[in-house]
């Protein structure tokens, strides 16, 4: 395993120390239990928004803590959901009395840990709501399974709900908005290479030089199918098809097109992906009025990409455009 680390045990802790040193103007970091919070939290008269999940997906979520987005992020061990005491402590630190929204990606572990956390917060008399993001069309949705994973739409929900909270919306409003973003967002991803979890020391899966994994998540879990490497344009067609054919897009819709890198994919390739994805979206009659291109929700050093489409409207577009000031996303400030 080749990584710029000191020891697998210390990866998350040392990275957080570096992160807070680099962004002391934006964030504070607490350890044991561990969370990242806005430097100016709690923010008076504002619903607090907290997310969290395993580490190894940077900049998600810590890179989105700041004005106009998250009040706190709870990082677990690499690819392992955080524990309830983290979310409980974070809530205590950032809730200004207007309540807290927990944005949770749909993984069994995350869901259970956030559920326990919500119970703890409520037991302390706190007001808390949870929204579960499940936008990954690679996974068949069914009440008999763990359901779809939460991937790219998570970041869009964090941005949009952050703006709504900043604008003074109530906990119920921000929760409903989050559910709406989730309902209107769809994602699909693929990998060229595996990633190596630090404490494991070898790649999670072996992928021959000419094969790719299709329908992967963000934890190095194998995808739905393995296939031969294809030109980028074909890969984009295959990613876009299930996204567009799934609910809820129709010709004429305005959408946000988010092309994400999984960590080891250079930006030059992401723009090649974006170019084709835009073409496919246009062919389907969609108007791409907003976009995001970059490595924002990653899987360590995995090479690959995911595409997320979010249907926009008069409510969502201005919230997307609203100012944001975090280490990973900033505009308007």
């Amino acid at each position, binding site marked *: 395993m080749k990584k710029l680390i000191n020891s697998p045990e210390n990866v998350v802790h040392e990275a957080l120390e570096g992160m807070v040193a680099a962004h002391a103007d934006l964030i504070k970091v607490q350890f044991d239990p561990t969370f990242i919070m806005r430097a100016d939290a709690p923010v008076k008269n504002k619903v607090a928004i907290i997310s969290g999940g395993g580490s190894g997906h940077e900049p998600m979520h810590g890179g989105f803590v700041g004005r106009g987005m998250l009040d706190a992020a709870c990082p677990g061990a690499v690819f392992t959901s955080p*524990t309830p005491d983290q979310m409980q402590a974070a809530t205590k630190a950032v809730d200004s009395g207007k309540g807290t929204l927990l944005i949770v990606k749909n993984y069994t572990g995350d869901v259970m840990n956030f559920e326990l956390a919500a119970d703890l917060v409520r037991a302390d008399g706190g007001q808390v709501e949870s929204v579960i993001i499940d936008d990954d069309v690679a996974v068949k949705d069914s009440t008999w399974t763990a359901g779809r994973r939460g991937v790219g739409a998570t970041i869009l929900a964090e941005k949009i709900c952050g703006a709504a909270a900043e604008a003074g919306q109530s906990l119920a409003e921000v929760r409903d908005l989050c559910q709406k973003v989730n309902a209107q967002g769809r994602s699909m991803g693929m990998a060229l290479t595996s990633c190596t979890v630090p404490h*494991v020391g070898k790649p999670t899966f072996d992928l021959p030089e000419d094969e790719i994994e299709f329908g992967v998540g963000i*934890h190095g879990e194998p995808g739905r199918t393995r296939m031969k490497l294809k030109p980028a344009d074909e890969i984009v067609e295959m990613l876009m098809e299930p996204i567009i054919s799934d609910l809820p897009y129709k010709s004429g819709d305005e959408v946000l097109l988010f092309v994400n890198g999984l960590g080891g994919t250079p930006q030059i390739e992401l723009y090649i992906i974006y170019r084709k994805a835009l073409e496919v979206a246009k062919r389907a009659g969609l108007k791409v009025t907003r976009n995001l291109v970059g490595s924002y929700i990653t899987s360590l050093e995995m090479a690959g990409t995911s595409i997320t489409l979010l249907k926009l409207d008069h409510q969502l577009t201005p919230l997307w455009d609203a100012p944001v000031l975090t280490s990973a996303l900033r505009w308007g400030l």
Partner: protein
Amino acid sequence: METMTVNSLDSATVVRWMQHCAETYQQHKDELTALDAAIGDADHGANMARGFTAVQGKLDGLKDKDIGAIFKGVAMTLISTVGGASGPLYGTFFLQAASGANGKTSLTQEEVAADFAAGLKGLMSRGKAVVGEKTMVDALVPALDALKPVANDTLAAALDRAIAAARKGADSTVPMVAKKGRASYLGERSAGHMDPGCLSSVLLLEALKQALPSG
């Protein structure tokens, strides 16, 4: 001192159990992780080892308490250190098992079976999985069933039955297509591998067996 035919569980044994857990999960870390790498995210070994190492660190403060208090301490430690799916699941198991053991420094075999059954019920209502969905439930349900006392039983004998049943349950998950947890994302590709949580459940029971006073 315990009698030759052990059929109760006392605080000291519970403490030894937890110590054995810390050791066994450290020892089997790579094996658990390899299973999780095949159909999950390659962290189950690290999760269990981290959790029970933390439990071990708490034992000094717990060892003079009643079993309910020990179980509760174990539960809270697992919940706050494991993360992932297994943390809340095993945590809930011990949390629910604690209720029946409150104030008791020794449990009869019947009480052990009833207590663990309560733990399993909590675990299953937390995870919403049933037998056949390729989760730890496939090992734990038959195992705790086998733990129920029979005529002329000892706790050691019951645990042997439970371990055998857990192993069988674990093996039964190999051909299954996962319906719960992270492995379910793989669909048909999840078949052909044992569920990692089943192995950690087997190890949990084996550690208890090891902790029983020899006799």
